[in-house]
């Protein structure tokens, strides 16, 4: 049995998330992954924006920062650059990270700054009651796509790689042991790392798409049934992959990390972090 209590602000529980919300599952996965790193709690900063997922920092006993909608990575960049010895972890909803926060996301990828971003990708704006997000599947109904979503989705991994991220992975809230592994690897990676976690929000997304997702359990089953590991996916055609969730570690590259590079310049003048 993993002892979460070490990392929890237990007095804040139960958390505000709905019954069965994937955010809780992923939060636990993050805690297990952190534990495996052996890092000091004082050296860890968990930063979020605004959204259901972004309430996470309130529950975990680190340096925690709940910023403004979409801005987690901007704040996190400041923290990491000002104090590079801190381990900075950003937790962000799909809306937070990729709608309003999309610009900070691609620039953090580009800089290759040593921050791990976990995208709690439930394909919906949960907190505000279920409007479509940049990752809502085609045709799904939501409170602002009552006629079915007409907008194409982002592939979080592809955009992260296109922007220069050096570690990318995708997991689901169903495949928890794998997720632990991806997150742990992301934390250990030197450089900007992204884990896209496919999740489900029954309250605002499932309920208005009952045909596709009769219950919150079905939403997890959907992940179970549609996930295909990247190794296997490589052998399949585009057609066969339609609607599938490709999981695994997509890229893991070495490239100079931003704050280290910066420190070298500083050191060349006098030495020592201030």
């Amino acid at each position, binding site marked *: 049995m993993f002892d979460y209590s070490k990392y929890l602000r237990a007095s804040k529980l139960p958390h505000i998330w709905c019954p069965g919300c994937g955010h809780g599952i992923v939060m636990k996965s993050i805690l297990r992954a952190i534990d495996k790193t052996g890092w000091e709690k004082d050296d860890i900063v968990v930063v979020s924006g605004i959204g259901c997922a972004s309430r996470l920092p309130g529950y975990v006993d680190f340096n925690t920062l709940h910023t403004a909608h979409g801005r987690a990575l901007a704040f996190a960049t*400041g923290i990491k650059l000002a104090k590079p010895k801190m381990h900075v972890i950003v937790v962000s909803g799909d809306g937070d990270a990729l709608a309003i926060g999309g610009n900070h996301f691609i620039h953090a990828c580009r800089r290759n700054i040593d921050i791990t971003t976990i995208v709690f990708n439930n394909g919906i704006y949960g907190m505000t009651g279920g409007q479509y997000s940049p990752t809502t599947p085609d045709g799904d109904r939501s409170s602002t796509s009552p006629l079915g979503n007409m907008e194409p989705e982002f592939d979080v991994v592809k955009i992260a790689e296109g922007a220069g991220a050096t570690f990318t992975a995708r997991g689901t809230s169903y495949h928890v042991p794998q997720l632990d592994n991806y997150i742990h690897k992301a934390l250990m990676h030197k450089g900007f790392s992204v884990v896209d976690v496919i999740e489900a929000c029954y309250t605002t997304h499932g309920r208005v798409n009952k045909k596709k997702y009769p219950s919150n359990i079905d939403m997890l089953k959907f992940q179970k049934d549609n996930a295909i590991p990247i190794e296997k996916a490589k052998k399949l055609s585009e057609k066969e992959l339609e609607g599938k969730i490709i999981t695994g570690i997509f890229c893991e590259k070495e490239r100079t990390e931003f704050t280290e590079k*910066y420190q070298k310049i500083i050191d060349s003048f006098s030495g020592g972090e201030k």
Partner: protein
Amino acid sequence: MTGSKFEFIQGNIACAKGAAYAGCSFFGGYPITPSTEIAEYMSEYLPKNGGKFIQMEDEIASLGSIIGAALTGAKTMTSTSGPGFSLMQELIGYACIAEVPVVIVDIMRGGPSTGLPTSPAQSDLLQAKWGTHGDHPTIALVPSSVEEMFTETVRAFNLAEYFRTPVLVLGDEIIGHMREKIRIPDPGEIQIINRTVPDNSGICPLPYASDSGKPACIPNFGKSRFHVTGLNHDITGFPTMDPAIVARENERILAKIYEQREIVDKWEEIECKDADILMLSVGSAARAAEEAVKTLRNKGIKAGLFRPLTLWPFPKDTFVKYAERAKYIIVPEMNLGQLKTVAERFTKRSKIIPVNLVNGEPISPEHIISVTNYLNI
């Protein structure tokens, strides 16, 4: 007087040097005319002196990055101009409610919108006070010379650290770009204030605890674990919707500043005591006003100038004292009447005469004097 300490520099460079003097170790910014020289100076000064400069992807990220860095203990700063200042508004409110000290310099230019990017204006004076949503405190300093760009920037850092709040420095294209001689003070010559942090480590249960009406005593990230949020929160730092606490904290972040006026207020008075014509003016317009006062006095007209260096909170008591006895109040400003609304608000007695210019040119002493010709003095 040795040459070495005197420098003939731009206002923007003086501002950057003031930041360095105050101990700024982190700058996050995005270039924009006419503020960019500040960032440019910091981009060389900081890495050479163990600090960090980063050019962020936009102004929102710039302010976000310095709030983040400030939470680790750094003294931080950004600089911008109108369009960027507008973009920063949301996070200014964040820094207010989360009580994070940051210094934000707005070198004002002609507007609205892209406007006249290379021309001066003073059109963000009221935006500085009301630009972000929600009730929030504002400290805004308005320098009038290259020297004050230095000293007021130092003071901005001091006030930010002391009050744990964002402090704005409102320059303008004239003050930012003109060059004057200034003496860079020796270290220690100007007092430097550093934030008070609790000495506990491990969990910090009450980061936002404070004697009533005083700033909170929040630790820096890395030694004590606590929670920071832009939601209304209680003294533990965690969100609350309890009406009594929400009201108390919303009021405290204003009261901590507005009830310590002796610390934050600053103004200059020139011949105010017996002034029949009292001018209210700030920044580069105040330089023209000062010249106008001199000229009028030479003509035997009792003119005076009240020049707030701390514009927000407005040093109203002293202003009112002089305003109530003056026959006319003249408000020269490079906008369409912003300080004028302040004068109107605080004075009940006198006639208020605006002197406005929004054509990209500075207001001249002659322009100010011309409006006095028809006054009944």
